[in-house]
Protein backbone atom coordinates (compact mmCIF):
# COMPACT_ATOMS: atom_id res chain seq x y z
CA UNK A 1 0.00 0.00 0.00
CA UNK A 2 1.18 3.47 -0.92
CA UNK A 3 0.09 6.80 0.47
CA UNK A 4 0.86 10.30 -0.77
CA UNK A 5 0.06 12.83 1.93
CA UNK A 6 -0.02 16.52 1.06
CA UNK A 7 -0.37 18.74 4.13
CA UNK A 8 -0.99 22.50 4.13
CA UNK A 9 1.19 22.98 1.06
CA UNK A 10 2.12 26.56 0.18
CA UNK A 11 4.01 27.19 -3.05
CA UNK A 12 5.27 30.34 -4.77
CA UNK A 13 6.52 30.87 -8.28
CA UNK A 14 9.54 32.98 -9.21
CA UNK A 15 8.51 35.99 -11.22
CA UNK A 16 10.53 39.02 -12.29
CA UNK A 17 8.52 40.99 -9.72
CA UNK A 18 9.42 38.55 -6.97
CA UNK A 19 7.80 35.54 -5.34
CA UNK A 20 4.14 35.08 -6.21
CA UNK A 21 2.18 32.76 -3.89
CA UNK A 22 -0.01 30.32 -5.83
CA UNK A 23 -0.78 27.33 -3.64
CA UNK A 24 -2.32 28.43 -0.38
CA UNK A 25 -2.65 25.43 1.87
CA UNK A 26 -3.38 22.28 -0.12
CA UNK A 27 -4.49 19.19 1.83
CA UNK A 28 -4.90 15.94 -0.07
CA UNK A 29 -4.22 12.26 0.59
CA UNK A 30 -4.04 9.70 -2.20
CA UNK A 31 -3.77 5.96 -1.60
CA UNK A 32 -3.09 2.95 -3.81
CA UNK A 33 -5.84 2.01 -6.22
CA UNK A 34 -7.61 5.30 -5.64
CA UNK A 35 -8.46 7.81 -8.35
CA UNK A 36 -8.84 11.45 -7.36
CA UNK A 37 -10.19 13.84 -9.97
CA UNK A 38 -9.15 17.46 -9.57
CA UNK A 39 -11.25 20.06 -11.32
CA UNK A 40 -11.03 23.82 -11.12
CA UNK A 41 -10.92 27.03 -13.11
CA UNK A 42 -7.99 28.10 -15.28
CA UNK A 43 -5.17 29.56 -13.27
CA UNK A 44 -6.34 28.09 -9.96
CA UNK A 45 -2.99 26.30 -9.47
CA UNK A 46 -3.62 22.70 -10.58
CA UNK A 47 -0.50 22.48 -12.74
CA UNK A 48 1.45 24.27 -10.03
CA UNK A 49 0.46 21.50 -7.62
CA UNK A 50 1.48 18.84 -10.15
CA UNK A 51 4.84 20.47 -10.95
CA UNK A 52 5.61 21.16 -7.29
CA UNK A 53 5.10 17.52 -6.42
CA UNK A 54 7.43 16.50 -9.26
CA UNK A 55 10.01 19.07 -8.13
CA UNK A 56 10.10 21.56 -10.98
CA UNK A 57 12.80 24.15 -10.15
CA UNK A 58 10.55 27.10 -11.00
CA UNK A 59 8.36 26.50 -7.95
CA UNK A 60 9.34 27.12 -4.35
CA UNK A 61 7.64 25.39 -1.45
CA UNK A 62 7.26 27.96 1.31
CA UNK A 63 5.56 25.73 3.87
CA UNK A 64 3.75 22.45 4.34
CA UNK A 65 4.82 18.87 3.78
CA UNK A 66 4.47 16.03 1.29
CA UNK A 67 5.11 12.47 2.41
CA UNK A 68 5.29 9.45 0.11
CA UNK A 69 4.96 6.40 2.32
CA UNK A 70 6.28 8.44 5.19
CA UNK A 71 9.30 9.72 3.26
CA UNK A 72 9.85 13.44 2.77
CA UNK A 73 9.20 13.89 -0.96
CA UNK A 74 10.16 17.57 -0.89
CA UNK A 75 13.69 16.75 0.25
CA UNK A 76 14.28 14.63 -2.86
CA UNK A 77 15.65 15.72 -6.24
CA UNK A 78 13.40 15.45 -9.29
CA UNK A 79 14.86 12.10 -10.35
CA UNK A 80 14.79 10.72 -6.80
CA UNK A 81 11.06 11.45 -6.63
CA UNK A 82 10.52 9.52 -9.85
CA UNK A 83 12.59 6.62 -8.56
CA UNK A 84 10.55 6.71 -5.35
CA UNK A 85 7.49 5.98 -7.49
CA UNK A 86 6.04 9.35 -8.50
CA UNK A 87 5.05 10.01 -12.10
CA UNK A 88 3.81 13.20 -13.76
CA UNK A 89 2.08 13.15 -17.13
CA UNK A 90 2.59 16.76 -18.14
CA UNK A 91 0.05 19.16 -19.57
CA UNK A 92 2.72 20.23 -22.08
CA UNK A 93 5.20 17.38 -22.63
CA UNK A 94 8.68 18.55 -23.58
CA UNK A 95 10.44 17.84 -26.88
CA UNK A 96 13.95 16.41 -26.58
CA UNK A 97 15.53 16.58 -30.06
CA UNK A 98 18.19 14.01 -30.81
CA UNK A 99 17.24 11.56 -28.05
CA UNK A 100 15.32 8.67 -29.56
CA UNK A 101 12.14 7.48 -27.90
CA UNK A 102 13.57 3.96 -27.65
CA UNK A 103 16.73 5.14 -25.92
CA UNK A 104 14.74 7.42 -23.64
CA UNK A 105 12.32 4.70 -22.55
CA UNK A 106 15.11 2.21 -21.88
CA UNK A 107 17.19 4.77 -19.96
CA UNK A 108 14.21 5.80 -17.85
CA UNK A 109 13.22 2.21 -17.12
CA UNK A 110 16.78 1.37 -16.12
CA UNK A 111 16.93 4.39 -13.83
CA UNK A 112 13.57 3.75 -12.17
CA UNK A 113 14.07 0.04 -11.60
CA UNK A 114 17.76 0.29 -10.74
CA UNK A 115 18.85 -2.18 -13.40
CA UNK A 116 18.67 -2.54 -17.15
CA UNK A 117 15.59 -4.53 -18.19
CA UNK A 118 16.30 -7.85 -19.93
CA UNK A 119 16.47 -6.84 -23.57
CA UNK A 120 14.08 -9.27 -25.23
CA UNK A 121 11.35 -9.00 -22.63
CA UNK A 122 11.69 -5.22 -22.74
CA UNK A 123 11.37 -5.01 -26.52
CA UNK A 124 8.22 -7.11 -26.33
CA UNK A 125 6.77 -5.07 -23.48
CA UNK A 126 7.36 -1.77 -25.29
CA UNK A 127 5.90 -3.11 -28.53
CA UNK A 128 2.79 -4.38 -26.75
CA UNK A 129 2.26 -1.14 -24.82
CA UNK A 130 2.68 0.91 -27.99
CA UNK A 131 0.25 -1.25 -29.88
CA UNK A 132 -2.35 -0.97 -27.14
CA UNK A 133 -2.03 2.83 -27.33
CA UNK A 134 -2.19 2.71 -31.15
CA UNK A 135 1.33 4.02 -31.49
CA UNK A 136 3.15 3.16 -34.71
CA UNK A 137 6.43 1.34 -33.87
CA UNK A 138 8.29 3.93 -35.99
CA UNK A 139 7.85 6.39 -33.12
CA UNK A 140 10.60 4.52 -31.26
CA UNK A 141 13.17 5.84 -33.70
CA UNK A 142 11.92 9.41 -33.54
CA UNK A 143 13.19 12.02 -31.11
CA UNK A 144 11.20 12.22 -27.88
CA UNK A 145 8.03 14.23 -28.55
CA UNK A 146 9.68 16.13 -31.41
CA UNK A 147 7.10 16.89 -34.03
CA UNK A 148 4.53 14.73 -32.24
CA UNK A 149 0.99 16.03 -32.55
CA UNK A 150 -0.70 17.22 -29.36
CA UNK A 151 -2.56 13.94 -28.99
CA UNK A 152 0.55 11.86 -29.71
CA UNK A 153 2.41 13.66 -26.96
CA UNK A 154 -0.35 12.81 -24.49
CA UNK A 155 -0.35 9.16 -25.54
CA UNK A 156 3.39 9.14 -25.07
CA UNK A 157 2.94 10.25 -21.46
CA UNK A 158 0.60 7.34 -20.77
CA UNK A 159 2.95 4.95 -22.58
CA UNK A 160 5.60 5.98 -20.07
CA UNK A 161 3.19 5.53 -17.19
CA UNK A 162 2.48 1.98 -18.33
CA UNK A 163 6.15 1.12 -18.75
CA UNK A 164 7.55 2.84 -15.65
CA UNK A 165 4.83 1.49 -13.33
CA UNK A 166 4.71 4.31 -10.77
CA UNK A 167 3.05 4.07 -7.35
CA UNK A 168 1.46 7.49 -7.72
CA UNK A 169 0.61 9.01 -11.11
CA UNK A 170 -0.39 12.64 -11.60
CA UNK A 171 -2.10 13.21 -14.93
CA UNK A 172 -2.28 16.90 -15.78
CA UNK A 173 -4.99 17.38 -18.41
CA UNK A 174 -3.95 14.25 -20.25
CA UNK A 175 -7.39 14.28 -21.87
CA UNK A 176 -7.04 17.74 -23.44
CA UNK A 177 -6.35 17.65 -27.14
CA UNK A 178 -7.39 14.04 -27.64
CA UNK A 179 -9.94 13.00 -30.23
CA UNK A 180 -12.82 10.75 -29.12
CA UNK A 181 -11.05 7.52 -30.03
CA UNK A 182 -7.72 8.57 -28.54
CA UNK A 183 -9.51 9.58 -25.33
CA UNK A 184 -10.84 6.06 -24.94
CA UNK A 185 -7.51 4.45 -25.85
CA UNK A 186 -5.64 6.64 -23.37
CA UNK A 187 -8.21 6.09 -20.61
CA UNK A 188 -7.95 2.34 -21.13
CA UNK A 189 -4.18 2.69 -20.84
CA UNK A 190 -4.52 4.47 -17.49
CA UNK A 191 -6.94 1.83 -16.23
CA UNK A 192 -4.65 -0.96 -17.40
CA UNK A 193 -1.64 0.58 -15.69
CA UNK A 194 -3.60 1.11 -12.50
CA UNK A 195 -4.98 -2.43 -12.52
CA UNK A 196 -1.50 -3.85 -13.06
CA UNK A 197 0.27 -1.84 -10.37
CA UNK A 198 -2.40 -0.57 -8.01
CA UNK A 199 -1.21 2.98 -8.55
CA UNK A 200 -2.93 5.92 -6.92
CA UNK A 201 -4.01 8.42 -9.59
CA UNK A 202 -4.48 12.18 -9.42
CA UNK A 203 -6.42 13.12 -12.54
CA UNK A 204 -6.48 16.83 -13.32
CA UNK A 205 -9.17 17.63 -15.88
CA UNK A 206 -11.66 20.19 -17.14
CA UNK A 207 -14.04 17.70 -18.68
CA UNK A 208 -16.33 15.01 -17.32
CA UNK A 209 -16.01 13.01 -20.51
CA UNK A 210 -12.84 11.25 -19.40
CA UNK A 211 -14.65 10.39 -16.17
CA UNK A 212 -16.98 8.20 -18.25
CA UNK A 213 -13.95 5.94 -18.79
CA UNK A 214 -11.99 6.48 -15.61
CA UNK A 215 -14.27 6.43 -12.61
CA UNK A 216 -12.98 8.66 -9.84
CA UNK A 217 -13.35 7.66 -6.21
CA UNK A 218 -13.18 11.30 -5.17
CA UNK A 219 -13.67 14.64 -6.88
CA UNK A 220 -11.91 17.74 -5.52
CA UNK A 221 -12.76 21.27 -6.55
CA UNK A 222 -9.59 23.31 -6.76
CA UNK A 223 -10.02 27.08 -6.44
CA UNK A 224 -7.52 29.86 -5.75
CA UNK A 225 -4.70 27.59 -4.73
CA UNK A 226 -6.52 25.15 -2.48
CA UNK A 227 -9.14 22.43 -2.35
CA UNK A 228 -12.49 24.19 -1.89
CA UNK A 229 -14.79 21.20 -1.85
CA UNK A 230 -14.62 17.43 -1.98
CA UNK A 231 -17.19 14.88 -3.03
CA UNK A 232 -17.94 11.71 -4.98
CA UNK A 233 -18.27 11.21 -8.75
CA UNK A 234 -21.59 13.08 -8.79
CA UNK A 235 -19.79 16.33 -7.88
CA UNK A 236 -18.16 16.32 -11.32
CA UNK A 237 -21.53 16.31 -13.05
CA UNK A 238 -22.73 19.16 -10.86
CA UNK A 239 -19.63 21.21 -11.67
CA UNK A 240 -20.16 20.68 -15.36
CA UNK A 241 -23.76 21.90 -15.07
CA UNK A 242 -23.18 24.80 -12.67
CA UNK A 243 -19.60 25.94 -13.27
CA UNK A 244 -17.35 27.37 -10.57
CA UNK A 245 -19.28 30.59 -9.82
CA UNK A 246 -20.46 29.34 -6.48
CA UNK A 247 -16.85 28.89 -5.28
CA UNK A 248 -15.49 32.03 -6.84
CA UNK A 249 -18.06 34.33 -5.26
CA UNK A 250 -17.48 32.71 -1.91
CA UNK A 251 -13.77 33.44 -2.26
Amino acid at each position, binding site marked *: MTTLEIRDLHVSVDTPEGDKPILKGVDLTIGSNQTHAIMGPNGSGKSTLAYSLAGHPKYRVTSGSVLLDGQDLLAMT*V*DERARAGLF*LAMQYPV*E*VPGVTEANFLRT*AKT*AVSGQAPPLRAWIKEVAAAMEALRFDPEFQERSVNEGFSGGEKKRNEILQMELLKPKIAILDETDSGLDVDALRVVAEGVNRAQAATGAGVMLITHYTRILDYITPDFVHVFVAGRVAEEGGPDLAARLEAEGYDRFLSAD
Partner: protein
Amino acid sequence: MGIDTKSRGTRLASFDLTDFPMPTGREEEWRFTPVRDLADLLLDDLAAEVVVQVQGPLGSGVTVEVVGRDHPAIGLAPAPGDRVAAAAWAAAESATLVTLNAGKVEDGVTVVRVIGSDGSTPARPSALHLAILAKAGARGTVLLEHTGLAHLTQGVEIVLEEGADITVISVHDWADGSIQAASHRVRLAQDAHLKHAVVALGGALVRLTEQFELAGPGASLDALGINVTDSGQHHEAQLFVDHAAANCRSRVAYKGALLGPLARSVWIGDVLIRSRAEGTDTYELNRNLVLSKGARADSVPNLEIETGQILGAGHASATGRFDEEQLFYLQSRGIPEELARSLVVHAFFAELIDQIGVLGEIKDALKMAVDSKLDQRSNHNQRRSQ
Protein backbone atom coordinates in the same frame (compact mmCIF):
# COMPACT_ATOMS: atom_id res chain seq x y z
CA MET B 1 28.19 40.50 -39.20
CA GLY B 2 31.85 41.30 -39.41
CA ILE B 3 33.01 44.78 -38.49
CA ASP B 4 35.30 44.79 -41.52
CA THR B 5 33.45 46.32 -44.42
CA LYS B 6 36.10 45.34 -46.96
CA SER B 7 35.29 42.34 -49.11
CA ARG B 8 36.72 39.07 -47.87
CA GLY B 9 38.03 38.55 -51.38
CA THR B 10 40.44 41.49 -51.08
CA ARG B 11 42.19 40.28 -47.95
CA LEU B 12 45.93 39.64 -48.30
CA ALA B 13 47.03 36.13 -49.22
CA SER B 14 50.68 35.36 -49.83
CA PHE B 15 53.34 32.67 -49.63
CA ASP B 16 55.82 35.27 -48.40
CA LEU B 17 56.03 35.66 -44.63
CA THR B 18 57.41 39.18 -44.90
CA ASP B 19 54.22 40.33 -46.64
CA PHE B 20 52.37 39.96 -43.35
CA PRO B 21 53.06 42.46 -40.58
CA MET B 22 53.10 41.20 -37.00
CA PRO B 23 49.49 41.05 -35.85
CA THR B 24 48.49 43.32 -33.00
CA GLY B 25 45.24 41.53 -32.20
CA ARG B 26 43.12 44.35 -33.56
CA GLU B 27 42.96 43.02 -37.13
CA GLU B 28 39.71 41.46 -38.28
CA GLU B 29 41.29 38.00 -38.55
CA TRP B 30 42.98 38.26 -35.16
CA ARG B 31 40.49 40.11 -33.01
CA PHE B 32 39.08 36.98 -31.36
CA THR B 33 42.44 35.24 -30.86
CA PRO B 34 44.80 35.50 -27.87
CA VAL B 35 47.61 36.54 -30.24
CA ARG B 36 50.21 36.56 -27.48
CA ASP B 37 49.89 32.80 -27.07
CA LEU B 38 50.77 32.38 -30.74
CA ALA B 39 53.65 34.88 -30.76
CA ASP B 40 56.38 32.23 -31.04
CA LEU B 41 54.66 30.72 -34.08
CA LEU B 42 54.78 33.97 -36.06
CA LEU B 43 58.57 33.89 -36.53
CA ASP B 44 60.70 32.41 -39.28
CA ASP B 45 62.93 30.08 -37.28
CA LEU B 46 60.56 27.28 -36.36
CA ALA B 47 61.69 23.76 -35.59
CA ALA B 48 60.31 20.56 -37.13
CA GLU B 49 59.74 18.73 -33.89
CA VAL B 50 56.45 16.85 -34.27
CA VAL B 51 56.42 13.32 -35.62
CA VAL B 52 54.29 12.34 -38.58
CA GLN B 53 53.30 8.71 -39.05
CA VAL B 54 51.10 7.45 -41.84
CA GLN B 55 49.15 4.25 -41.72
CA GLY B 56 46.56 2.88 -44.04
CA PRO B 57 45.73 1.00 -47.16
CA LEU B 58 48.89 1.92 -49.00
CA GLY B 59 48.48 0.21 -52.32
CA SER B 60 48.64 1.75 -55.73
CA GLY B 61 45.51 3.74 -54.85
CA VAL B 62 47.22 5.74 -52.12
CA THR B 63 50.83 6.82 -52.08
CA VAL B 64 52.62 8.60 -49.27
CA GLU B 65 55.98 10.32 -49.62
CA VAL B 66 58.06 13.01 -48.01
CA VAL B 67 58.91 15.56 -50.68
CA GLY B 68 60.66 18.90 -50.96
CA ARG B 69 58.64 22.08 -51.06
CA ASP B 70 59.61 22.45 -54.72
CA HIS B 71 57.79 19.23 -55.65
CA PRO B 72 55.21 19.93 -58.38
CA ALA B 73 52.35 18.67 -56.18
CA ILE B 74 53.16 21.14 -53.39
CA GLY B 75 51.94 24.73 -53.36
CA LEU B 76 48.88 24.19 -55.56
CA ALA B 77 46.34 25.30 -52.97
CA PRO B 78 45.42 28.95 -52.31
CA ALA B 79 48.13 31.05 -50.63
CA PRO B 80 48.29 31.46 -46.82
CA GLY B 81 45.82 34.03 -45.51
CA ASP B 82 47.62 35.19 -42.39
CA ARG B 83 51.04 35.38 -40.80
CA VAL B 84 50.83 32.20 -38.78
CA ALA B 85 49.97 30.20 -41.91
CA ALA B 86 52.74 31.92 -43.88
CA ALA B 87 55.19 31.04 -41.08
CA ALA B 88 54.27 27.37 -41.43
CA TRP B 89 54.93 27.56 -45.15
CA ALA B 90 58.20 29.47 -44.70
CA ALA B 91 59.57 26.93 -42.22
CA ALA B 92 58.55 23.80 -44.09
CA GLU B 93 61.47 22.57 -46.17
CA SER B 94 59.72 19.31 -46.80
CA ALA B 95 56.17 18.08 -46.73
CA THR B 96 54.32 14.81 -46.25
CA LEU B 97 52.35 14.27 -49.43
CA VAL B 98 49.41 11.87 -49.54
CA THR B 99 48.25 11.22 -53.09
CA LEU B 100 44.93 9.55 -53.78
CA ASN B 101 45.28 8.15 -57.27
CA ALA B 102 42.54 7.87 -59.81
CA GLY B 103 40.75 4.70 -60.64
CA LYS B 104 42.04 2.64 -57.74
CA VAL B 105 39.78 2.81 -54.73
CA GLU B 106 41.50 1.48 -51.63
CA ASP B 107 39.22 0.29 -48.86
CA GLY B 108 39.72 1.89 -45.52
CA VAL B 109 41.15 5.10 -44.19
CA THR B 110 44.58 6.63 -44.60
CA VAL B 111 45.51 7.80 -41.12
CA VAL B 112 48.07 10.57 -40.73
CA ARG B 113 49.20 10.78 -37.10
CA VAL B 114 50.74 14.04 -36.00
CA ILE B 115 52.35 13.34 -32.66
CA GLY B 116 53.72 15.91 -30.25
CA SER B 117 56.05 15.25 -27.36
CA ASP B 118 55.20 13.12 -24.34
CA GLY B 119 55.14 16.22 -22.18
CA SER B 120 58.33 15.51 -20.21
CA THR B 121 59.87 18.65 -21.71
CA PRO B 122 58.15 21.78 -22.98
CA ALA B 123 57.18 21.68 -26.65
CA ARG B 124 59.34 23.82 -28.96
CA PRO B 125 57.65 26.12 -31.46
CA SER B 126 57.44 24.00 -34.60
CA ALA B 127 56.09 23.98 -38.12
CA LEU B 128 54.68 21.25 -40.29
CA HIS B 129 53.37 20.97 -43.83
CA LEU B 130 51.02 18.29 -45.11
CA ALA B 131 49.54 17.95 -48.55
CA ILE B 132 46.67 15.85 -49.79
CA LEU B 133 46.30 15.55 -53.54
CA ALA B 134 43.26 13.79 -54.97
CA LYS B 135 43.85 13.02 -58.62
CA ALA B 136 41.06 13.33 -61.15
CA GLY B 137 38.25 10.95 -60.28
CA ALA B 138 39.95 9.67 -57.08
CA ARG B 139 38.00 8.42 -54.07
CA GLY B 140 39.19 7.99 -50.51
CA THR B 141 39.27 9.07 -46.90
CA VAL B 142 42.13 10.68 -45.00
CA LEU B 143 42.05 11.08 -41.23
CA LEU B 144 44.46 13.52 -39.56
CA GLU B 145 44.98 12.81 -35.87
CA HIS B 146 46.76 15.18 -33.52
CA THR B 147 47.90 13.96 -30.11
CA GLY B 148 50.58 14.65 -27.53
CA LEU B 149 51.97 18.00 -26.44
CA ALA B 150 52.71 20.44 -29.23
CA HIS B 151 53.37 24.07 -30.02
CA LEU B 152 52.74 24.03 -33.71
CA THR B 153 51.79 25.95 -36.79
CA GLN B 154 50.59 23.58 -39.46
CA GLY B 155 49.78 24.00 -43.11
CA VAL B 156 47.48 21.49 -44.75
CA GLU B 157 46.89 21.82 -48.45
CA ILE B 158 44.11 19.82 -49.99
CA VAL B 159 43.76 19.81 -53.75
CA LEU B 160 41.00 17.99 -55.58
CA GLU B 161 41.34 17.51 -59.29
CA GLU B 162 38.36 17.16 -61.61
CA GLY B 163 35.68 14.81 -60.33
CA ALA B 164 37.61 13.69 -57.24
CA ASP B 165 35.37 12.82 -54.29
CA ILE B 166 37.13 12.52 -50.95
CA THR B 167 36.68 12.93 -47.21
CA VAL B 168 39.24 14.61 -44.96
CA ILE B 169 38.73 14.54 -41.20
CA SER B 170 41.02 16.35 -38.80
CA VAL B 171 40.78 15.48 -35.12
CA HIS B 172 42.60 17.73 -32.65
CA ASP B 173 42.94 15.78 -29.45
CA TRP B 174 46.09 17.42 -28.12
CA ALA B 175 47.32 17.10 -24.58
CA ASP B 176 46.51 19.91 -22.15
CA GLY B 177 48.53 23.03 -22.73
CA SER B 178 49.13 22.43 -26.44
CA ILE B 179 48.97 25.35 -28.84
CA GLN B 180 48.19 24.90 -32.51
CA ALA B 181 47.46 27.09 -35.47
CA ALA B 182 46.34 25.08 -38.47
CA SER B 183 45.72 26.49 -41.90
CA HIS B 184 43.71 24.27 -44.19
CA ARG B 185 43.93 25.59 -47.72
CA VAL B 186 41.69 23.83 -50.16
CA ARG B 187 41.07 24.02 -53.90
CA LEU B 188 38.35 22.08 -55.67
CA ALA B 189 38.36 21.63 -59.45
CA GLN B 190 35.34 21.02 -61.64
CA ASP B 191 32.77 18.56 -60.26
CA ALA B 192 35.00 17.63 -57.32
CA HIS B 193 33.38 16.92 -53.97
CA LEU B 194 35.03 17.27 -50.57
CA LYS B 195 33.66 16.38 -47.21
CA HIS B 196 35.87 18.20 -44.75
CA ALA B 197 35.46 17.84 -41.00
CA VAL B 198 37.35 19.21 -38.04
CA VAL B 199 36.91 18.04 -34.47
CA ALA B 200 38.54 20.15 -31.75
CA LEU B 201 38.69 18.50 -28.35
CA GLY B 202 42.07 19.06 -26.72
CA GLY B 203 44.78 21.68 -26.36
CA ALA B 204 44.86 25.06 -24.69
CA LEU B 205 44.50 26.88 -28.01
CA VAL B 206 43.50 25.46 -31.37
CA ARG B 207 43.00 28.02 -34.11
CA LEU B 208 41.89 26.69 -37.46
CA THR B 209 41.71 28.79 -40.58
CA GLU B 210 40.01 27.03 -43.44
CA GLN B 211 40.02 28.45 -46.93
CA PHE B 212 37.93 26.61 -49.47
CA GLU B 213 38.18 27.74 -53.04
CA LEU B 214 35.45 26.28 -55.23
CA ALA B 215 37.48 26.89 -58.36
CA GLY B 216 35.79 24.71 -60.97
CA PRO B 217 32.15 24.66 -62.02
CA GLY B 218 29.97 22.09 -60.27
CA ALA B 219 32.31 21.66 -57.30
CA SER B 220 30.67 20.73 -54.03
CA LEU B 221 31.78 21.14 -50.40
CA ASP B 222 30.50 19.85 -47.08
CA ALA B 223 32.42 21.55 -44.28
CA LEU B 224 31.59 20.17 -40.87
CA GLY B 225 32.97 20.92 -37.44
CA ILE B 226 32.65 19.98 -33.81
CA ASN B 227 34.25 21.51 -30.77
CA VAL B 228 33.96 20.37 -27.18
CA THR B 229 35.62 23.07 -25.18
CA ASP B 230 36.33 23.05 -21.48
CA SER B 231 37.42 25.75 -19.08
CA GLY B 232 40.76 27.25 -20.08
CA GLN B 233 40.53 26.09 -23.68
CA HIS B 234 40.19 28.30 -26.75
CA HIS B 235 38.87 26.64 -29.90
CA GLU B 236 38.55 28.77 -32.99
CA ALA B 237 37.53 28.10 -36.57
CA GLN B 238 37.68 30.78 -39.25
CA LEU B 239 36.20 29.67 -42.54
CA PHE B 240 36.36 31.29 -45.92
CA VAL B 241 34.20 29.61 -48.53
CA ASP B 242 35.10 31.20 -51.85
CA HIS B 243 32.56 30.52 -54.58
CA ALA B 244 34.74 31.35 -57.59
CA ALA B 245 32.99 29.28 -60.27
CA ALA B 246 29.46 28.66 -61.48
CA ASN B 247 27.02 26.07 -60.17
CA CYS B 248 28.92 25.12 -57.03
CA ARG B 249 27.34 23.98 -53.81
CA SER B 250 28.53 24.42 -50.22
CA ARG B 251 27.09 23.32 -46.89
CA VAL B 252 28.73 24.38 -43.67
CA ALA B 253 27.63 23.00 -40.29
CA TYR B 254 29.62 23.61 -37.11
CA LYS B 255 28.51 22.83 -33.59
CA GLY B 256 30.22 23.49 -30.31
CA ALA B 257 29.65 22.70 -26.66
CA LEU B 258 31.25 24.84 -24.00
CA LEU B 259 31.62 22.89 -20.81
CA GLY B 260 33.46 24.95 -18.25
CA PRO B 261 33.31 28.51 -16.91
CA LEU B 262 36.33 29.81 -18.88
CA ALA B 263 35.66 27.87 -22.08
CA ARG B 264 35.98 30.02 -25.19
CA SER B 265 35.05 29.31 -28.78
CA VAL B 266 35.05 31.35 -31.95
CA TRP B 267 33.41 30.57 -35.24
CA ILE B 268 33.67 32.87 -38.24
CA GLY B 269 32.00 31.82 -41.45
CA ASP B 270 32.83 34.05 -44.41
CA VAL B 271 31.10 33.05 -47.62
CA LEU B 272 31.86 34.96 -50.80
CA ILE B 273 29.85 34.44 -53.96
CA ARG B 274 31.84 36.07 -56.74
CA SER B 275 30.16 37.65 -59.72
CA ARG B 276 31.08 34.72 -61.95
CA ALA B 277 29.65 32.16 -59.48
CA GLU B 278 26.17 32.00 -60.97
CA GLY B 279 23.97 29.15 -59.84
CA THR B 280 25.60 29.03 -56.39
CA ASP B 281 23.80 27.11 -53.67
CA THR B 282 25.18 27.73 -50.18
CA TYR B 283 24.08 27.41 -46.59
CA GLU B 284 26.04 27.73 -43.38
CA LEU B 285 25.09 27.00 -39.83
CA ASN B 286 26.74 27.37 -36.46
CA ARG B 287 25.17 26.29 -33.19
CA ASN B 288 26.68 26.50 -29.74
CA LEU B 289 25.52 25.00 -26.50
CA VAL B 290 26.78 26.87 -23.47
CA LEU B 291 26.74 24.59 -20.44
CA SER B 292 28.43 26.82 -17.93
CA LYS B 293 28.15 30.38 -16.72
CA GLY B 294 31.14 32.44 -17.81
CA ALA B 295 31.81 30.43 -20.96
CA ARG B 296 31.72 32.39 -24.18
CA ALA B 297 31.00 31.49 -27.78
CA ASP B 298 31.39 34.03 -30.57
CA SER B 299 29.63 33.24 -33.81
CA VAL B 300 30.04 35.48 -36.84
CA PRO B 301 28.42 34.40 -40.10
CA ASN B 302 29.11 36.64 -43.06
CA LEU B 303 27.68 36.32 -46.53
CA GLU B 304 28.82 38.44 -49.49
CA ILE B 305 26.95 38.09 -52.75
CA GLU B 306 28.25 39.65 -55.95
CA THR B 307 25.70 38.15 -58.34
CA GLY B 308 21.95 37.91 -58.28
CA GLN B 309 21.94 34.72 -60.32
CA ILE B 310 22.12 32.21 -57.48
CA LEU B 311 20.08 29.23 -56.40
CA GLY B 312 20.18 29.96 -52.72
CA ALA B 313 22.28 31.47 -49.96
CA GLY B 314 21.54 31.38 -46.29
CA HIS B 315 22.99 31.20 -42.84
CA ALA B 316 21.92 30.44 -39.31
CA SER B 317 23.71 30.99 -36.06
CA ALA B 318 22.43 30.29 -32.58
CA THR B 319 23.98 30.10 -29.16
CA GLY B 320 21.83 28.61 -26.44
CA ARG B 321 22.03 27.56 -22.86
CA PHE B 322 21.04 24.23 -21.53
CA ASP B 323 17.31 23.74 -21.81
CA GLU B 324 16.09 23.40 -18.22
CA GLU B 325 12.71 22.06 -19.33
CA GLN B 326 14.37 19.17 -21.18
CA LEU B 327 16.44 18.42 -18.14
CA PHE B 328 13.37 18.47 -15.91
CA TYR B 329 11.47 16.19 -18.27
CA LEU B 330 14.23 13.58 -18.35
CA GLN B 331 14.78 13.77 -14.60
CA SER B 332 11.08 13.45 -13.94
CA ARG B 333 11.39 10.00 -15.52
CA GLY B 334 13.98 8.99 -12.95
CA ILE B 335 17.06 9.77 -15.05
CA PRO B 336 19.77 11.29 -12.82
CA GLU B 337 20.83 14.83 -13.62
CA GLU B 338 24.31 14.07 -14.99
CA LEU B 339 22.97 11.33 -17.24
CA ALA B 340 20.18 13.62 -18.43
CA ARG B 341 22.72 16.33 -19.30
CA SER B 342 24.88 13.86 -21.10
CA LEU B 343 21.90 12.57 -23.12
CA VAL B 344 21.06 16.09 -24.24
CA VAL B 345 24.65 16.98 -25.16
CA HIS B 346 25.16 13.75 -27.08
CA ALA B 347 21.89 14.40 -28.86
CA PHE B 348 23.19 17.84 -29.81
CA PHE B 349 26.14 16.27 -31.66
CA ALA B 350 24.59 12.99 -32.83
CA GLU B 351 23.40 14.07 -36.26
CA LEU B 352 26.65 15.83 -37.08
CA ILE B 353 28.75 12.83 -36.03
CA ASP B 354 26.58 10.64 -38.24
CA GLN B 355 27.21 13.03 -41.10
CA ILE B 356 30.97 13.06 -40.56
CA GLY B 357 31.36 9.37 -39.94
CA VAL B 358 30.75 7.98 -43.39
CA LEU B 359 32.54 4.88 -42.28
CA GLY B 360 31.36 3.00 -39.21
CA GLU B 361 34.82 2.82 -37.68
CA ILE B 362 35.34 6.58 -37.89
CA LYS B 363 31.92 7.25 -36.47
CA ASP B 364 32.57 4.96 -33.52
CA ALA B 365 36.00 6.48 -32.91
CA LEU B 366 34.57 9.99 -33.02
CA LYS B 367 31.71 9.09 -30.70
CA MET B 368 34.21 7.63 -28.28
CA ALA B 369 36.47 10.68 -28.44
CA VAL B 370 33.58 13.09 -27.90
CA ASP B 371 32.08 10.88 -25.19
CA SER B 372 35.29 10.65 -23.25
CA LYS B 373 35.71 14.42 -23.36
CA LEU B 374 32.15 14.87 -22.09
CA ASP B 375 32.54 12.17 -19.45
CA GLN B 376 35.68 13.75 -18.08
CA ARG B 377 33.44 16.61 -17.22
CA SER B 378 30.73 14.60 -15.51
CA ASN B 379 33.34 12.86 -13.37
CA HIS B 380 34.74 16.23 -12.56
CA ASN B 381 31.29 17.48 -11.53
CA GLN B 382 30.54 14.41 -9.49
CA ARG B 383 33.78 14.87 -7.61
CA ARG B 384 32.90 18.48 -7.02
CA SER B 385 29.45 17.72 -5.68
CA GLN B 386 30.72 15.16 -3.20
